[in-house]
């Protein structure tokens, strides 16, 4: 399958008002699986994710895909830390990204019906999306991202503030996407979730990539004292 990956970050840094928020970071994202980004609050997880997606202005360095910028932009999707709902109905939120790429109407409607069922929102199809519960919004945001069948899906704490059932639903969605070949790069504060989902992981600290590796080694044999402390739940700054 041709893909926009690998994604290569070379000497990337982000500074705002004289403060270094990120970097310098060098990393290569391979073409399959799920990468989990972990780290304390304010360590730069969101910034890193936004940099990869290309919605954060760089102060230095390069972000490159295996294809041109324009094509790469079309083949990735992002779910924000606080879900952004269009002021439209649930069904229209799903319709929006499909309308942008202009596919046949019949196909669009079929996709919407299918995704509504998959996220359990069929009875809410005609409701204003802004009135959904937090968990429902999050599911809708993920469905709206996946409905375009992106090569790469970025998720910023998709399960923050959600209960066990909603978290399980979302993890099931992500597993399905993974088995369909979608590359997922996400952040979480839920270590259990990280262990369940990750193929490999990155530990961010003070804007730097502190430790990274395949899930097994990362979780069972962390190399740095800071990551061990993080797993213990100690406060690290």
């Amino acid at each position, binding site marked *: 399958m041709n893909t926009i990956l690998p994604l290569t970050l070379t000497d990337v840094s982000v500074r705002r008002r004289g403060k270094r928020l990120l970097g310098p970071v060098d990393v290569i994202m391979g073409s399959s699986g799920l990468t989990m980004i972990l780290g304390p609050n304010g360590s730069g997880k969101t910034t890193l994710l936004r940099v990869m997606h290309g919605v954060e202005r760089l102060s230095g360095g390069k972000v490159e895909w295996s294809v041109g910028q324009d094509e790469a932009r079309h083949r990735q*999707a992002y779910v924000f830390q606080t879900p*952004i709902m*269009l*002021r439209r109905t649930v069904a229209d939120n799903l319709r929006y990204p499909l309308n942008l790429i202009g596919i046949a109407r019949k196909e669009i409607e079929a996709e919407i019906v299918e995704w509504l069922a998959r996220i359990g929102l069929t009875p809410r199809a005609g409701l*204003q999306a802004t009135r959904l519960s937090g968990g429902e919004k999050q599911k809708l945001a993920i469905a709206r991202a996946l409905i375009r069948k992106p090569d790469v899906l970025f998720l910023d704490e998709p399960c923050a503030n959600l209960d066990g059932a909603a978290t399980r639903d979302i993890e099931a969605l992500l597993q399905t996407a993974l088995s369909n070949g979608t590359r997922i790069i996400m952040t979480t504060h839920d270590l259990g979730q990280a262990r369940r989902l990750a193929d490999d992981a990155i530990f961010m600290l003070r804007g730097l990539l502190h430790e990274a590796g395949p899930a097994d080694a990362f979780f069972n044999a962390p190399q740095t004292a800071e990551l061990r402390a993080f797993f213990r739940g100690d406060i690290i700054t």
Partner: protein
Amino acid sequence: MSDIYEGLVSAFWLVVTLDPDLVQISLRSLQVSLTALFIASAIALPFGTFLAIRRFRYRRLAISLLNALMGLPPVVVGLIVYILLSRSGPFGVLGLLFTPTAMIIAQVIIITPLIASITHQAMRELWAEYHDLLISMNTSSGQRIRTLIWDGRRNLLTASLAGFGRAIGEVGAIMIVGGNIDNATRVLTTAIALETGKGDFALALALGFVLIALAIGINICIHWLSRTEREGRW
């Protein structure tokens, strides 16, 4: 005092019997102001939205200019349009002076900045909300503007209604460029001014009733729109 009382009574009759003069003048008022509203909205809604989402060099200047234009005295607008359209003016050959078209032009100039300014305010809020999502979805400028206009349509309708309210109640500019000619350019406001001057309170008051009814109707609409906005319906 009895003048006014008699005026009120006959005004009431003019309204309930649908007096032909009254109807004609009211319809012309609606026609002029609705046409002006339509044209002004077609300019101001996309322009206000554009101002809210695009950063360009003279954006701040454009916004200040817009706010300044909003405060332009209508009489001065009338004067300028008069000069431009008068026989010796640059557009004199068109022969538009003292026609409804001239009145529409003046009203468009008066209400476009108002509608654009309200649009800009509302769209700025919506854009702050949508910004990251629309950037992430790789939308073109045109798609962004269309999305904001569609999802902000209630706010835009409010902006347009405010413009319509200003247009239908305006008298200075259209008096100058329209000339208040019977059966041609006489509208509600100019007729009220004329009939009051002549001392015909009956017709003046009847016209006033219609104008007030329109103004109240618009306000009810705006109120209703902002309520549905809060409750998140349509």
